[in-house]
């Protein structure tokens, strides 16, 4: 069974199924969604279990020809339906299943127009998974852009008072970001040749089964000597081909050898910058982050969970898979700048979080700050840094849903998230206080929880890096203190002291069963991955070793 295709299309078919279900069975929509997400989690856990960390490269590969355009003298353009997972995408896929399941349970609070809601939710899920497993840049981009559409409607139709503004801002910001990616994508496929299919088209071999590494090498030599008729060159979007300099047409703009310049800067560096901006919007990185607090504040709780838990991760994933792997030269050239922006995100996000009155805005800015650590770890270009960046993505994917759920708890009871309107919740809401404490302490980087591992190793990686000045790393370290500051201060104001709130006592009841079902497993997972980070590192290590080869 093509397992990755199943992972993509199971939710999408589920979405169609929901549309077909009659309005009379309204109550079952949520359960259909939860069951599908559960099944999804089982499948992706199975992949995690069978994945062999020793093997180099992609596993569970699926590859089918999709679009082949013959454009005369210009050559042939081949777009493939190509999927696979490696040590980078596997944790993200698993995380998607987990967060979407939690989000589905959290969605029980949605009371209007459920059919459309769950259909869009499942559609979103399919596209996110597709993004993580696509190995063809065209396919990746398709999922990457299409994902905006369900998200736009989910925020815009079920969001808070300023939802119209927030959803449009989200859509336009991220679409603008993806246009930057599209610019490079066009340049890339016009520059890169698929050596295997070109071997077929020039008749070096007669059927796909005969393609060996020798044939590929032979074609690459022919490409380098420009001995192939342009009409027979097969242009490709396949990411594994894009990150090999030998597949570039020598005189093409993005070739590693030609050294073309655009407005005085090497074309490859410009391309890297564009990709970087595109993914930085998604991550988000200061100063391109302004859509995030708005989107979070207006989105309903489950959508905030999904947005922080997975959608931001696609930005980080894109850095690794596309910007860094394809343009390592750019990554090296801009490393200090990227680290600087990472530190800026850490500090700026943290200071903003300190000043917020709205709990959801606070968490949103804490996300910006935490994503700064991903940038810092990535910019280090050391194995520790890269491992830590992936780990930080993963850990934040577990912790940020928890944080948003915690805020969702009070919001569901009073429709008010203002920090100043609550005090001393600890008495009367013990379970809530306990789980909030875990979420806060884990997020501020208490050893023993997953948050610590990511941040600590990011800083360590950055210290060991030859590209990053030490003062930047020290400054980044201050982010940890600021993080402790805003989390503890918030905790103190809301939970400690004499019990008081704007609202009646009868409203503020402790967690119900459904809320515990969401929060407890996340807390346990954070603890589990904090104590045994090796479970994740053993998967990512092999990938990071391959990744680092681009920078030597």
């Amino acid at each position: 069974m093509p397992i990755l295709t199943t992972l993509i299309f199971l939710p999408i078919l589920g979405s169609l199924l929901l549309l077909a279900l009659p309005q009379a069975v309204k109550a079952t929509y949520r359960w259909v969604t939860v069951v599908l997400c559960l099944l999804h989690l089982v499948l992706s856990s199975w992949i995690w279990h069978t994945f062999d960390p020793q093997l180099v490269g992609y596993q569970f590969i699926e590859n089918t020809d999709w679009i082949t355009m013959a454009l005369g003298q210009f050559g042939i353009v081949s777009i493939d339906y190509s999927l696979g997972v490696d040590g980078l995408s596997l944790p993200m896929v698993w995380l998607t299943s987990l967060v979407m399941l939690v989000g589905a349970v959290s969605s029980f609070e949605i009371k209007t127009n459920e059919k459309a809601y769950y259909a869009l939710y499942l559609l979103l899920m399919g596209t996110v998974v597709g993004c993580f497993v696509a190995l063809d840049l065209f396919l990746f981009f398709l999922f990457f852009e299409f994902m905006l559409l369900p998200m736009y409607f989910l925020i815009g139709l079920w969001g808070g008072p300023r939802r119209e503004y927030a959803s449009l801002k989200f859509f336009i910001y991220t679409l603008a970001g993806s246009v930057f990616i599209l610019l490079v994508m066009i340049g890339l496929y016009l520059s890169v040749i698929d050596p295997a299919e070109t071997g077929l088209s020039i008749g070096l071999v007669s059927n796909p089964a005969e393609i060996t590494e020798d044939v590929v090498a032979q074609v690459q030599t022919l490409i380098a000597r420009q001995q192939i008729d342009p009409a027979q060159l097969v242009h490709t979007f396949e990411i594994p081909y894009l990150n090999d300099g030998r597949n570039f047409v020598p005189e093409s703009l993005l070739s590693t050898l030609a050294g073309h310049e655009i407005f005085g800067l090497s074309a490859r560096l410009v391309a890297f910058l564009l990709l970087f901006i595109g993914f930085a919007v998604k991550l988000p990185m200061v100063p391109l982050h302004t859509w995030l607090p708005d989107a979070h504040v207006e989105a309903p709780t489950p959508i905030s969970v999904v947005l922080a838990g997975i959608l931001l991760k696609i930005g980080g994933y894109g850095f690794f898979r596309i910007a860094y792997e394809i343009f390592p030269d750019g990554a090296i050239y801009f490393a200090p700048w990227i680290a600087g922006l990472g530190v800026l995100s850490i500090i700026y996000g943290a200071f903003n979080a300190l000043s917020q009155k709205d709990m959801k805005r606070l968490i949103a800015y804490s996300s910006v700050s935490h994503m700064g650590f991903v940038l810092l770890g990535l910019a280090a270009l050391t194995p520790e840094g890269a491992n830590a960046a992936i780990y930080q993505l993963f850990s934040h994917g577990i912790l940020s849903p928890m944080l948003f759920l915690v805020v969702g708890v009070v919001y569901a009871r009073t429709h008010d998230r203002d920090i100043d309107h609550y005090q001393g919740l600890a008495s009367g809401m013990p379970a809530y206080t306990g789980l909030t404490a875990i979420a806060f302490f884990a997020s501020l980087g208490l050893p023993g929880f997953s948050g610590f591992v990511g941040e600590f190793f990011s800083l360590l990686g950055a210290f060991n890096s030859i590209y990053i000045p030490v003062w930047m790393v020290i400054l980044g370290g201050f982010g940890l203190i600021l993080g402790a500051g805003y989390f503890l201060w918030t905790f103190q104001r809301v939970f400690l002291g004499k019990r008081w709130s704007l609202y009646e006592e009868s409203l503020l009841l402790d967690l119900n069963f459904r809320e515990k079902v969401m929060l407890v497993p996340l807390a346990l997972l954070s603890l589990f991955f904090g104590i045994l980070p090796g479970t994740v590192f053993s998967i990512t290590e092999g990938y990071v070793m391959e990744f680092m080869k681009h920078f030597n």
Partner: protein
Amino acid sequence: MLEQLDHIMASLASFTPEVWLIVAFVALISWDLITPEVQEEGRGGFFHFLTFLVFAVLGLFVYHQWQTQSPGALFHQMLMLDGKALFFKALITLSALIAILHSWVMKRRWSGEFFSILIGMVFGLFLLSMATNLLMVYLSLEVVSISSYILTAFRGDRKSSEGGMKYVLFGSVSSGLMLYGMSLLYGLTTTLDFTNPAFGRILLSVDPLVSASALILAMSGLLFKISAVPFQIWNPDVYEAADTPVVSFFSVAPKAAAFLVLMRLFSVLPLNFQPVLAVISLVTITIGNFSALWQTDAKRLMAYSSIAQSGFVMVGLVAFSSLGNQTALFYLATYLFGTMASFVLIDALSSSGRKNSVPISSFNGIGKQQPLAAVLLTIAFLSLVGLPLTVGFSAKLLVFSSLWEAYQQTSLNLFLILFAFGLLNTAVSLAFYLKIPFALFFRKANDEALPVSLPRGALFLSLLLVLPIILLFIKTDWLINWISGI
């Protein structure tokens, strides 16, 4: 003498679709004269059916030519019947069919001449798509223009008369400029046949300022038809004045034919003409998109959208390569589905009661009443933005690919600017294309608005138009491989 007659006779054999149009034109107008109109408000279903039949048979003729015709010049190099001309004839026929179906399913009534004039306009467009002689271009363009003036002002109320008048004024100025430019070109090159190699060669040898100004002037009529900047001013007024099915036809067919002539003209132009076109293209995209941001009327919004879309098609032409032309053809063909589907649905979904102006607020809350149609309209708009899973994305990808390729060959920085800003414009365009879906889904219905009764035919027609938008994305190769074989 005899030879000439032979040639004309042979040419006539390849002229069957046009002859059919003339016959249909005369027949329809006589029928209208001899049968008295039963009702005051004009001809309804039966004349729509007849006109539909005329265009359907026309489609068969074009298909037959496609199967049998080998490329060749007709009537002493006046016309050129090649694969491209046939492709555009097919596009024009298709858009005429859709427009007449649109008018039919929305139960429009027209007095009988309307249908004949529409047929006359198609005739002009067919000639234009084959014209390779400057005089022929002028002549067929005038046939198209005069028909369009009448169709715009056809309803005869104050608003549409005003729109029609503006159209006439702007149109005649631009055709005057065009004629002046053509006379200059003729004076310079001593030939009217612009596919003649001597035409390009001589233009290259004269002072660039002279040749450039003569060419720009000569192109003005065509730029007017595709509503490129600075000849775009008429567009919003005409779109608002004319009835929606007519606007839908205007936004595709005359543009397509004018683009083909531009394409033919560019194939002989000296390369140093590229930057001028790149600038026109960029300015057209930008002005179209940014003006559309402020619109509150759906038809005016579509007018600016169509200006911007013309700019995108021009991107393909700017490349001056066969790849560029192919991708521009692809763009035009797919633009047809996106824009005509939008017009059908705008017409059907608005609660404004079929007046000239269709305020965006008249779509408020309709999405709840008519979810399927609202989703279809959203898909059509997303295709115009160029988001994936719609063919609009493939089209943008392809035209900008051809531009990148042109940049690699010429290293002209202007191309890079067009490349980057053109694509970034799509993010801007999202803001206004979302306005109507936004009203449909997010806004509450107006209190005084009547419930929208969606004719079943309109839903079916729009479904038929939206289907290719998705299908041609999934199998982009079907259309583009066919086009590159032309």
